[in-house]
């Protein structure tokens, strides 16, 4: 599904070129649940931003579902992103002035889905994530776990093939975090490819493969024989 070949990101300082990612070669197959781990500053979130096409300032080769992302213009990358990728943020990043239902509606609206269809999809998603009762509430009226749940629902509403999650439980307490990870597991079993960035070893056990980064390099990989709980 994903092929990264010699992907690098750096920026110029007075001291010279500073690398954030160095010669990243990575393949991820469809249906995998990959955890990217490493110490602070290892380049995990940067790697996720590149995979999610939020960052265009890198070099190397990146193929997604057979498409050469490195050859696409930023505008075309955004279109590719819209088609195949959903992103879950550590800080939820819900839109504070929109209700839960409206937050779910926005990605569909950006994908030019018709109004009547959008309403049906939003209703289904609310039901699927059991947040129908919260549909008219604003984010500041929800708990952290509920907000992240909405964040996950929003990331999935357009049925992406790939879900990227950057420290999805970082701002949650452990019970809430486990709920979210169990949800991810379920989604992965249903066919969604998931790549998560986390510090948590516990969260890593939900996946079937771990990629470790240090100082911008891939330090090592490990495949779990039996993933998840």
């Amino acid at each position, binding site marked *: 599904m994903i092929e990264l070949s010699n992907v690098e990101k750096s920026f110029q300082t007075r001291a010279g070129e500073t690398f954030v990612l160095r010669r990243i070669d990575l393949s991820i197959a469809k249906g995998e649940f990959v955890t990217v781990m490493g110490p602070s500053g290892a380049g995990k*979130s940067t790697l996720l*931003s590149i995979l*999610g096409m*939020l*960052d265009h300032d890198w070099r190397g080769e990146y193929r997604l579902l057979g498409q050469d992302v490195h050859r696409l213009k930023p*505008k075309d990358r*955004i279109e590719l*992103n*819209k088609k195949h990728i959903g*992103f879950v*943020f550590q*800080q939820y*990043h*819900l*839109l*504070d*002035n*929109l209700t839960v239902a*409206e937050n779910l*509606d*926005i*990605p569909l*609206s*950006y*994908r030019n889905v*018709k*109004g009547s269809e959008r309403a049906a999809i939003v209703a289904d998603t609310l039901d699927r994530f059991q947040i129908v009762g919260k549909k008219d509430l604003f984010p500041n009226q929800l708990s952290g776990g509920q907000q992240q749940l909405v964040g996950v629902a*929003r*990331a999935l509403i*357009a049925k992406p093939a790939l879900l990227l999650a950057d420290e999805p439980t970082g701002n949650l307490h452990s019970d809430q975090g486990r709920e979210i990870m169990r949800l991810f597991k379920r989604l992965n079993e249903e066919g969604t490819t998931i790549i998560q960035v986390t510090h948590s070893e516990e969260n890593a056990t939900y996946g079937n493969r771990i990629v470790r980064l240090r100082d911008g390099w891939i330090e090592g990989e490990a495949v779990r024989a039996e993933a998840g709980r």
Partner: protein
Amino acid sequence: MNTLLQDLRYGFRTLIKSPGFTAVAVATLALGIGANTAIFSVVHAVLLKSLPYPEPDRLVVMRERHIHHCCSGVAWPTFLDWRDQNRSFQAIAGFHEWRVMLSGLGEPEMLRSAQVSAEFFPLLGVRPALGRFFDADDDKPGAPPTLILSWGQWKRRFGGDRSAVGRTIDLDTVPYTIVGVAPPSFAFFPDTVDVYTPVGLMGSLKTWQDRSNHAGLRVLARLAPDASLESARREMEMIMLRLEKQYPDSNSGQRALVASLDDVMFRDYRAALWILLAAVGVVLLIACTNVAHLLLGRASARRREFAIRTAIGGNRGRLVRQLLTESLLLAGVGGGLGVVLATWALGPLLRLAPAEIPRLADTRIDPAVLLFTLAASTLTGLLFGLVPAVQASRSDPQSTLRESGNSTTGGLERQRFRAALFVSEVALAFVLAVGAGLLLRSLKRVEGVSPGMETDGVLALDVYLPEAKYTTPTGRLLFYERALNELRRMPGVEAASASLCTPVVGQCWGSPFLISGRPVPSQSDLPDSAFNMVESSYFRTMRVPLKEGRFFDTTDTPDSPPVVVINETMAKKWWPHESPIGKRIKQGFPQDEAPYREIVGVVGDVPQDGLDAEIRTEVFLPMSQHPDAAMTFLVRTGRPPMSLAKAAIGAVHAIDKDQAVTAVQPMSQYITESLARRRFHTLLLGVFGVLALFLAAVGIYGVVSYGVGQRRREIGIRAALGASPSDVLRLVFRQVLRLAAVGMAIGIAAALLLTRFFASLLFGVGPTDPVTFGGVAFLVIGVVVVACARPARRALAVDPASVLRSE
């Protein structure tokens, strides 16, 4: 459509959630759009609306002019020649504004009348409200006198009674039969006309039969289908050359002046109104700049939102559309409130405007004006919203979403844009303030012009003696002398006199003249002067200074040698190196029988045509030797002049109870009225200038305040490291003052370029008057300093300890 509604709903909610920002932005836009709406409604009613006649662009107005001096009425025989000889016009009609005295229906009253040809109303496509208009049989010398009532007179005098048609009323003691009533909407003449009579009746007067008498007749014509204004002008030139050859004594040097009706009606007001509209346009630009500043500030605070939207699939186009929708929503609400403000302001605006502006009464907030407001609001929304929207849509989702959410000062591009907005605000405010300053100095200059006489404490009242009753000069002179005696006997009266021309108002007639002992020029090269008839005590009553010789006195009688007094301009022009006393001049053409008159005195100049008009040469004839049918009585008193009004009218009626008295007002009111238009323009431009400076100050305050907020941490650290208050102020305001200086430099350059366009509105100051430019520069610097004062206090109040603690 669905997503547009979504954007609207969201935009509305966002604005409601920021009431402070929304209130300031809406108020700013309302002021700018409202001012534009109000002024545009005037411009639309006066200049843009089509004249209410069929094919108004085919209508022309014609006068005569001399090749050496301007314009006069058309001599009656010349008008008849034009009517018979032209091929350029499908219809041609004469019209002449006059006053007539209505009597026999209660109190005698002076009415405004218009003497018009039979073709006049049909040419304008007007139909009578009642009865009929004049026909060819009415419009010829010796025809039974007929008249058409204005709608207003019909309602007022006859209560709208249909049986008024066919009745008879006396005008100037002559019975006229009412044949029709004009429609209520008809308003061709600048002053409301009360009655219309056939101009052809004037053709029987000996004075009108004289080709050299230009009695104030003008000609209205409709171009023939195959003629243009240029071809008509060429044909009229040929006709006048033919007449010049045919009648050299009267028509030498005479030509036709042909202008479109539109030009004649609006020429004097066009420039000023467009300038006012441009001025409010500048105010709106400044308002847009302010709101753009506010939006930029908000965009910084909303970076997180835009980053999220981008991360979840929003492309730049959608983001820009969303933000523009919000801007248009703001502009729409601002525009709506602007219409309310404009409606409220229109009443006072129209009351202040000089009544002489044509079609001013038609000003209203009509669909065309609302359409203008809609267009202005839309353009405004796009103007102030586009760049902030495009800039906001360029957010980098990756870096923004990883931040804790604190906004930063924004990228270099955003800062440059802010700087450009700041500079343009200062420049625009400068230009407008210079315009207002120039007009204000002009007004002060005009107000400082001496009227050449003492006008305070003088009551003026006009009389028009009907020719049918006062048929001889002796009869007229007797009336004036007896009336003056009655006026002088009134308690509180210090002196009383009379003159043909009311000073400043510009009613004097012009005439060629000859100087005895000098070669007689050709007919076309005869000099021209204003001529005035005055009672012998006129100069003393009005306190016009005597420069040389003597005033008229009781020795100047109808039987004594004919004399004149001239003004200083005339003396300097024609006798620059000698005294004119004893010299002789003759009014009229060489072949005329008028006598040569001896110059017995030179008096100070009186501005006949307005305080800001060039002083013409003026010749005064003694009323005793030349009593005209229309005179203005001038009564000097130590009391408030209007307190004598009733008694003065009574004094005239004591001599002739059927004689109407009109235009009873203090002399100073004529001065005030002559300045009305200039005062109006100055007031409006002054208000806009103040508004522009106020908005600029608000904008500058916002920018500086925002900058101080952004640099709070830096200021705290510098203060902790030992920066003094002046160091802090320098840090914060160095850039502000630099930008203000750039703005002023651009403003000066722009003002130097633009002010020449309203040089015609100025008096006594040039469009690049250094005093005005310097004064406004100081004012703008002052505004910048005041706007920076509060942010400066905030910057000085930053506590280094609390800043370091929060780090």
